[in-house]
């Protein structure tokens, strides 16, 4: 597939555009990457995602798509190699359930733990830990959510390991610990060690700097 038929509008620190990069890389899809300046959104972004004006946006044959999990499903439907979702409908439902759980429950708690102070932060940390523990149950003792190899949920939620650790460092409170969440902890470590995953990550020191700077604004 020609590179110019697939375009990804993203932002270097965004885990949402990272998910899409991972999916494209896993499937060996050539694409053109366009870095957006979120303080100065391009006319192209505003045209391609008028409803939310956010990244990531995947443009395939000039047709734009937004919302990272929806983009992942699209990629999986169009390019069948290295499938992200399992074949069985019940297993697919479980995968969608956990990807949604990570986005709806783990991420907001993580964001609150990062941005709040005092009692609110304490509550957010507690909630983040509880939800991460629940996410761990979704692994069902497997190495990855996808089984022996990574799949939909791994790509959708694996980034949380890195961001949670970074948040923990910045706020001085550990969010993921090997004692209470041993399987989740190993999963994050194993996932982030996978070469294609590692290759797409933003440079860790720059990411940490960026997050630290962001934290000062709260």
């Amino acid at each position, binding site marked *: 597939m020609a590179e110019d038929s697939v375009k990804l509008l993203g932002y270097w620190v965004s885990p949402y555009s990272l998910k899409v990069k991972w999916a494209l890389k896993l499937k060996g899809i050539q694409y053109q990457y366009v870095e957006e300046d979120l303080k100065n959104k391009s006319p192209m972004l505003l045209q391609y995602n008028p409803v939310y004006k956010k990244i990531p946006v995947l443009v395939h044959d000039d047709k734009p798509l937004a*919302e990272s999990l929806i983009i992942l*499903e699209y990629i999986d439907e169009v390019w069948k190699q290295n499938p992200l979702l399992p074949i069985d409908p019940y297993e697919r*439902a479980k995968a969608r359930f956990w990807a949604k759980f990570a986005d709806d429950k783990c991420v907001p708690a993580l964001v609150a733990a990062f941005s709040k102070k005092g009692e609110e932060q304490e509550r957010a940390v507690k909630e983040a830990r509880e939800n991460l523990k629940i996410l761990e*149950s979704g692994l069902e003792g497997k190495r990855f959510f996808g089984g022996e190899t990574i799949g939909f949920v791994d790509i959708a939620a694996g980034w949380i390991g890195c961001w949670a650790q970074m948040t923990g460092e910045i706020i001085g409170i550990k969010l993921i610990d090997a004692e209470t969440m041993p399987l989740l902890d190993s999963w994050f470590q194993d996932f982030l060690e996978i070469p294609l995953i590692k290759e797409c990550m933003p440079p860790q020191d720059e990411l940490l700097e960026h997050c630290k700077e962001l934290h000062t604004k709260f």
Partner: protein
Amino acid sequence: MEEVKLLGVWPSPYSYRVIWALELKGVKYEYVKEDLANKSDLLLRYNPVHQKVPVLVHNEKPIAESTVILEYIEETWPHNPLLPTDPHERAFARFWIKFLDDKSPTLVGLYLTVGEEQEKATKEVRELLKIIEEQGLGEKKYFGGDKIGLADLVFGFIPVWLGVLEESAGVKVTKPDDFPRLQVWIENFRENPVIKANLPDPHQLLAHSKQKREVLLASKIA
């Protein structure tokens, strides 16, 4: 032998989405009425993570979260398809389904607020309806295209519940000439024989909604 059970509550738009999908596909199911003030052991066992309805149980395998259930139904019973075949159109339908769910706090905000806050909420809902009409529906007959689909079932909130929220909150979001294409869609939706045969009783819904609002507002002030 297929065994399909749906745990739901009668006033919930989320339960109805699933009812409509099952009915449109002619899937036989047993409906189990839940009492959210007194959750059954069955519900807690089938949805330990969220302890919410709807939950679909197919041959003892539980599926929770209405949008996940809708996709499961579509994949398990592919006849009378409720999603387009083209991947881009499918993504478009999913986008709008997510849009409505993401904006539900805005819609419900209309109902949970009073005074100035409610005026602000009313304005926000109008803006939402404009986006839905212009960009979601566009010139199409249904959100999914020529036929009713999953996105329409989710937007079914508008014909069935929005009016009830407005009336119980004592507010009117739209005037008769507003959003003409959306109005046509609403009529088409309501006239669909399966939808028509599976609607909550509007009087009961209004009474329930009014009562719930009183309780919610009182707890806010307290």
